[in-house]
């Protein structure tokens, strides 16, 4: 059961990562990146690493996304491709 969940999470991460790299709009890419981080939180929990999961959720997914979004806002949307 757990294995299937991990495979599902992995597939989600890979799809999100490809989307993050290839997306046309940077905002979408940032969101996809935070999806990768958030799904990795699930993997960390599945691998019995609650400390890492909390840190990744607050620092990795939360703060990085916030910092990216604020700086993106400051650049007035970056430039779209």
């Amino acid at each position, binding site marked *: 059961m757990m294995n299937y969940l991990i495979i599902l999470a992995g597939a989600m991460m890979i799809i999100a990562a490809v989307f993050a790299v290839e997306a046309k709009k940077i905002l979408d890419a940032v969101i996809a990146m935070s999806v990768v981080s958030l799904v990795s939180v699930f993997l960390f929990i599945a691998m019995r*690493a*609650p*400390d890492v*999961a*909390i*840190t990744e*959720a*607050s*620092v990795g997914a*939360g*703060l990085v996304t*916030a*910092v990216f979004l*604020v*700086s993106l806002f*400051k650049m007035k949307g970056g430039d779209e491709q």
Partner: protein
Amino acid sequence: MRRFYAILIAAALVYMLISFISTVPSYGKADLKERVSDAFLSKSVNAQNTKAWMEGKAIHRQPAKEIYGKKVKEEGSANVVTSIVVNYRSFDTLGEVTVLFTAALGVGLILGGSRRKQYGREANFVLKTSTGILVPLIIMFGAYIFVHGHLTPGGGFPGGTIIAMASLLLYLSDEKFFLSKASTGALEGSMGGTYVIIGLLGLAIGGYFLYNFLPNGVVGNLVSAGIVPLVYVAIGLKVGAELSGLVTDLHSEKEG
């Protein structure tokens, strides 16, 4: 063409990593007996012999005994990850704190504004009222996380980040809100100094930098594990101040 080469290089890297996987113990089969973590888990580092350990033989193993709720001479945190982060490998954590310090410093130097950037937009009513209620709760939660770092998952870094999130919320909800650099800088600097001074006290008392000079107490109690909670509180406050400073820099602009 560029894409083709990129795919080639990435594929080569992935191939290299995957070919290495065969030499790593397969997933879920890690053998801790061959790793130093065994001693961290059983809290028996002092009982080990370096030379014998390196030769991979005569590993001194203590019979399994109760650790939770007992006094353990060597190390007193219930959370083994914390015991590694803040005690066995505390020097790494000092470096980690320094990286964040450097990053906050760098963002300040690069963006370096002295007043709040105005976008001329009012936050809506729901955000404003809920911020008023949430901010104290968030700060309390962050403090809880770093105070209990040696007992439960969490610790100084997530705790500090959660506190910084409170200040981010304040920035989002209030156009006028502005933390002064002097206050966050003072908290950041003094807490960083506290960490180093705790380490230097260890050097003075025990002869080793970051030596745990306080009694370990009973594993699982709030007041236990010697310097670990002190260090984690210092880290939590420092990270909170640092990241709040970073958020401040992101919301500021240069005068004029």
